[in-house]
């Protein structure tokens, strides 16, 4: 990665500190005006005049706005920048606010996940550098190439879901055979991400393969949609097949409040489960 891009300001890695570090920001902003990509991790808290997160004695939100002004585009790296994530979970004491609710006049590419898959992050940025354009985004602003399918759609345990073979409790016979984790609260049926295809850390595994249900960490507000172990609720509604993409989900959800998106998407799973007389 470092051979393709120049990582000029990254306060976790950089050698210099204090003024010298801030000076780099100013230099890049002038030298590459209108031509740099700003990648943001985390998000600004707005309560207390923004002073829940201070950089150089000033609110982080000020630095964000200043640097965003002359950026070509912004990448919201991770669920924090994209949606607010855990610090924005109820009651959001610091009023942590995602980037797109602070910056309005720039293209924003959301790469959600807590964290996002490293290969997906690399994929998005190298795509932009190689083809010199922003990847095609869905209605929520996520690159379609990695976020157009649910974990459930390509999950290797899907045949067990279809066959009605479930893990009933951790470490039971089904858990040892790799049965479907739906009853253990798996959020795979409502989560758009590439975990079940790209997998994690050079494709070694992903949460479901390691035996825990998906917690839905790339979805907006996943912290407030009930326990990791609560089964996706059964509601009456219109189902979505594997072929449904994020746009359709988004359209269906328009005008519906909050957690409803998740519930809608869960329907196909539930219909099948019910059909097997196995939904409870």
């Amino acid at each position, binding site marked *: 990665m470092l051979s393709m891009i120049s990582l000029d300001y990254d306060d976790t890695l950089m050698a210099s500190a204090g003024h010298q570090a801030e000076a780099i920001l100013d230099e890049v902003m002038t030298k590459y005006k209108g031509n740099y990509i700003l990648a943001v991790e985390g998000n600004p808290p707005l309560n207390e005049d923004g002073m829940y997160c201070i950089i150089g004695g000033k609110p982080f939100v000020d630095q964000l706005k200043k640097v965003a002004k002359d950026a070509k585009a912004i990448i919201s790296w991770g669920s924090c920048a994209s949606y607010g994530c855990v610090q924005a979970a109820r009651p959001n004491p610091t009023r942590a606010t995602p980037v797109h609710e602070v910056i309005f006049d720039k293209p924003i590419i959301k790469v959600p996940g807590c964290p996002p898959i490293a290969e997906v992050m690399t994929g998005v940025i190298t795509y932009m550098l190689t083809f010199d354009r922003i990847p095609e985004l869905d209605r929520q602003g996520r690159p379609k190439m990695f976020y157009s399918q649910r974990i459930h759609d390509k999950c290797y345990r899907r045949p067990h879901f279809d066959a009605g073979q479930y893990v009933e409790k*951790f470490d039971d016979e089904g858990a040892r055979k790799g049965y479907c984790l739906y009853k253990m609260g798996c959020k795979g049926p409502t989560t758009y991400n590439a975990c079940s295809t790209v997998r994690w850390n050079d494709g070694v595994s992903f949460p479901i393969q390691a035996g825990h249900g998906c917690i839905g960490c790339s979805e907006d507000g996943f912290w407030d949609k009930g326990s990791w172990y609560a089964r996706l609720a059964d509601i009456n509604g219109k189902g979505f097949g594997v072929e449904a993409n994020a746009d359709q989900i988004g359209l269906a959800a328009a005008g519906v409040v909050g957690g409803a998106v998740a519930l809608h998407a869960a329907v196909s799973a539930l219909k099948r489960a019910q059909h097997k007389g196995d939904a409870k």
Partner: protein
Amino acid sequence: MTILTPNGFSLDTAGRRIVVDPVTRIEGHMRCEVNVDANNVIRNAVSTGTMWRGLEVILKGRDPRDAWAFVERICGVCTGCHALTSVRAVEDALQIKIPNNAFLIREIMAKVLQWHDHVVHFYHLHALDWVNPVNALKADPKATSALQQAISDHSKSSPGYFRDVQNRLKKFVESGQLGIFKNGYWDNPAYLLPPEADLLAVTHYLEALDFQREIVKVHTIFGGKNPHPNYMVGGVPCAINMEGDMSAGAPLNMERLNFVKLKLQEAFEFSKNVYVPDVIAIASYYKGWLYGGGLSATNVMDYGDYEAIQGQKSTDRLPGGVILNGNWNEIHPIDPRDPEQVQEFVTHSWYTYGAGKNDVGLHPWDGVTEPNYQLGPAAKGTKTNIEAVDEAAKYSWIKAPRWKGNACEVGPLARYTLAYAHGVDYVKGQVDEALGRFNTLAGTNLTPKQALPTTIGRTLARALEAHYCAEMMLTDFNNLIANIKAGDSTTANVEKWDPSTWPKEAKGVGTVAAPRGGLGHWIKIKDGRIENYQCVVPTTWNGGPRDPKGNIGAFEASLLNTPMERPDEPVEILRTLHSFDPCLACSTHVLAPGGEELARVTVR
């Protein structure tokens, strides 16, 4: 004006004030202000945590079985240690005993984390305080090769190998885009390594960058991903199926365990042949720079961890306790449940315990986290543009924890000081051998009591601890295999999975030897929900502000009396602060993958 603190440090605010904000190469956000005298020696130090996200507030009313995932996000680097502490706290409250396989798998995961965190810290967050990459261009690769062969058996040691790395580095520098090395202090006389050692370290910076991606795959196998692998209350989610039907689709089978074993062995080789010898060799060039000890010379603490036998605290392979006033002959036992022992103060923190309670200390079970941001009368600037804080008033988003009123340093150095004083054979052997090698290379004759409480000692203890962890995790792995072989494949105890089986009220505590020091989570459960949750994290101990009596914490103490070559270039400040591996994301209970940082990428 000079003040003498109750814990024996003298502070003088008369000289020039220097501000470093942001302090980079740490997790999270931190600011540091110091006063230097006419000779550029640091005479006052003020450490400020600059971020708060209110996790304790967010956890209230949630399912205790979910807490691990929330607190895991406190930090993107030590990912997993908060999750482990959390499940331990919940299991303690509900009196759940986890199966031995689950215990061993968690132990392996914890030590992999420790190892990974220490290696990344040294090479990627700390080395640039000692190593000058620009100077490495002047090295003769043959000299680097000779140095490598003199200090260890590492296989990558040929002159051609080092020449190749040097050429890559040259191209990078010549391109004019120095990236993360930009605006470093590369002509500062505080850098003392000869070019061949700089090239050795830069080469290993790159090797470590590659290998750190490999070792975390152990977490991917057991927890599904890294960062933020999955945990669960009652055991581990990765069921074992060695030979039965559908073993191939099971979380753990022979193929998966072989993979883990290979990575553990590679880690062992790396810390043995690269990390530990590098630290000793680099340290030997800085033999005259024995600053930065601060509190570690007197007060250190840890809860103890790494039981050799599950459930028997007395078998801790890094035993805990508290040492006060530098008396290694007396180790005070520590009890995290005792309301009189661990307490947090907010006199100088941007929190309130209510009117009239500004100087009160609260045990974490009764902890309160209510923000109260205000600058003191002597602060410079405005509320949203701080030029200088007023350390006589509130000045940090971190609380000040104390053990029976004493400020203590925590971390690998604290654990190694305790283990040495406890007489742990492995640790004594390691420390004595490392110091022997250091003394030979440096031509000195330092004893452990002289060498350990320093910035260098802190960095050395971390390296030794990483290698001890590599050794222990191989033992844990062998025990896991032996246990499975003996017929036990259990990985979870789900008897108390259902909240209806829980008592109406319960409270528990979990502790872990986290990479940066003793970590504790305290939980109160009521009617199946979290009633109160408090984390007292290592960087709170080290980086916290002063307490009502005026005792200073470890960061502030460590900077005192250090001379700076050039006050405008904070090399020495960074060197010592980084030796703690500060994690301000944790200490202010924040979360973000990789810290809430602003990364900038420029298109070519």
